[in-house]
């Protein structure tokens, strides 16, 4: 993962503009990162675990191998909306047609851990979310998970002190929850003001990572704010 300061074009813009040599690997990378919301969508839509896995895998194969991106009728602007629209299209047409061969064991281009995916899905709350709602929500949370992981990794890179600090400060990041600056300060042996400053910086770092993460899924970094707003809708 490149640092935010270095990206020249977003991953999705690389893919969407197609034809470039890097677009395939960029697409693979994106798919490998964002497959779970699709899986959850299919499962919520009524597919069993096997079928959802096959569909997801088949879809990605078609997407990557057959240059589906260039052909598909789609909304190019956002990877998130494109992916769902393309999957629906795929599921209703191609998949029905090719089901027999694919199930027999078509070539797979991505190795996805469907087992863990299914485990994860089993823990999804049984609420009234529609498949689409599930997809959007899972997507939003996935973006945040990935951001959180990168933030943690970034702190860990700074040594065990930083890592410990991260663990302590992390609950303060969102401002939700019960942690207070005072308590955290006592734990870390820092003044309350120093904690505030540290959290402030951590938020800024988080923002950079999050924006870079989201920028990768839209074709123009200017849409980042808008995409964030949509993701917020999804978790509200």
């Amino acid at each position, binding site marked *: 993962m490149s640092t935010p300061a270095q990206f020249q074009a977003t991953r999705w813009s690389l893919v969407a503009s197609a034809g470039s040599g890097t677009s395939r690997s960029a697409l693979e990378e994106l798919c490998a990162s964002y497959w779970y919301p699709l899986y959850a969508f299919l499962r919520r839509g009524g597919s069993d675990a096997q079928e959802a896995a096959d569909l997801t895998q088949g879809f990605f194969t078609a997407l990557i191998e057959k240059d589906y991106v260039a052909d598909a009728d789609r909304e190019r602007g956002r990877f998130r909306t494109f992916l769902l629209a393309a999957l629906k299209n795929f599921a209703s047409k191609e998949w029905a047609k090719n089901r027999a061969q694919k199930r027999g064991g078509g070539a797979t281009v991505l190795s996805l851990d469907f087992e863990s995916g299914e485990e994860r899905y089993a823990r999804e709350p049984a609420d009234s979310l529609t498949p689409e709602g599930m997809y959007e929500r899972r997507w939003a949370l996935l973006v945040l998970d990935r951001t959180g992981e990168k933030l943690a990794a970034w702190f860990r890179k700074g040594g065990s002190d930083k890592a410990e600090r991260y663990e302590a400060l992390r609950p303060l990041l969102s401002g939700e929850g019960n942690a207070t600056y005072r308590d955290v300060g006592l734990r870390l042996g820092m003044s309350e003001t120093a904690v505030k400053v540290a959290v402030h910086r951590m938020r800024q770092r988080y923002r950079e990572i999050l924006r870079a993460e989201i920028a990768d899924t839209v074709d123009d970094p200017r849409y*980042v704010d808008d995409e964030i707003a949509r993701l917020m809708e999804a978790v509200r």
Partner: protein
Amino acid sequence: MNDPQDPQKQARPEDAEAARLLEVGLSTGTGRPPRAAPSPVEMSEHFPDLELLEVLGQGGMGVVYMARQTKLDRLVALKVLPRELSEDPAFAERFAREARTLARLHHPHIVGVHEFGERDGLFFLVMEFVDGVTLRQIMAGGELTAREALAIVPQICDALQYAHDAGVVHRDIKPENILLDKNGRVKVADFGLAKLATRGDQDFTLTGTDQVMGTVHYMAPEQYKTPLEVDHRADIFSLGVVFYEMLTGELPVGKFQKPSEASNLDERIDEIVMRALERERDVRYQKAEEVESDVKTVVTSERAPARQDRGLRFHARLRRRDDKRPFSRFVLWSLMLLPVGVIAYILVYSFVSNNAVNNTYFYAMTASIWAGIIAASIAALVNLAAAIWASRRRSQVRGHGVAVLAMLVSLVSIGMMSSTLANLTTNMHVREFNSEFFKPYDPEAGDWGQLTVAGASAFDERRRILTSLNNTWVNYLDAISVRDPDKGGVRFTYSSEDRNKLEQMDDAEHEKLRAANALGMGVVGQATLPHSPHHFTPQAVEIDPWKREGRVTMIKAGERVFLRYPIRNDGGQWKFAIGQVTFGPE
């Protein structure tokens, strides 16, 4: 499909945190929910030297109040930065440094900073109060003409160039930060404030890069790609976005049209806007003053005429969809001119027809009709030209001015037509009249001009009735003096005071006149030919026009006398002729 936000959806604490974390990611986000701006009253406790009047605005960079500096009794704008900023211990130092730089910027197109500081943990700036509106408000309020945009941009450039020379990059040029005061003067606000909200450049250890600030759509690509390397050219990009938005009403995102495709514009404007919007800053304009001079070149040359493809442009313009206005204006003004033309026509017509007789009458009629048509055509053409000229400028105000001018021109042309016509008619006839019916003044004979019947071959008799042009002899000539050529001196003067006598014309005589008139133009009843006194000779005070003998000598030296007289042609029909005679000197 069900609404994903089904009311049955269970509240998940996970989601609340997710929403809050996403909010952290927003470019304007502080990670905290936005608060309502403290009211002027709440805020005034921190600023005893100011009388806070109202909240002017609120944004990512704090709240702006309109305030009065009580001591100086002047209006100022007080900007109070978000309290959150003070959490950053380095902020105070950076704030002071930036504000000092800003306070040093003195420029007619930059909102000046009077004072800055910190009160009770609140960082504030006291700034020049600009009584006006933001460019955003103007754009939202309706059509901003290209002409206005072209007037605004150079002023922004001027401000930017000045600031850039002083080493200040605005970093957040957007319509909200461009104010226009009541005189239409541009004032750029919030110079360099965007930088205040970002990390200090000395502290990379934790943040790595500057936090991305500013309004995304107006940001240069390098502002979110390599924020640390932003220089003054980022402002030029933002200016390009603002420029584009002013011209087209849209933002240059995605595969955007050139301004001239979106709007009716000179293609050279495209080049300027596109060059300002170059994603690669090395290809972009390097200095704001270059933009300024290019815009000014276009503006100046647009005023100058002569382009090869002018004819084509003209037609293109006529067909252009968004150019309906000039035509409606054209129609409007033409309609407004119509009554003027009709009235002018009636005036000319009645004037001429009253006086025109015989073939002259025909000429006069025709001529007055033509006068009307020509005047109306001139008016229409001038109007069309005005409308097109106005549309080129995209300015309504000037358009109306030119239309008014057109109307004046039309009126003048109608007037000139009328007077020419009148002269033409009478003069034309004078010659005829003089040569055929009047003897000019003959000093040898001692005659002051003779009206005889000698040459009146066209007339079967020497009968003639002399009246003034409008049938009121006495009114027309103030006085008629009849001189006796033999003895000299005034023999008789007939003045307008004698008019009353006319009324006493005896019936029998009146009847004769009526008959004569009736034979002619059918203006029975208009005959106001007075009784005897108007037939003058030196010898006889009265001559009966219906008699063959006698002569009339009229003297009014140096004046032209318009005469109308009935004539009877060979066919024995009565007609009227008009003429003018100039009598010899007294």
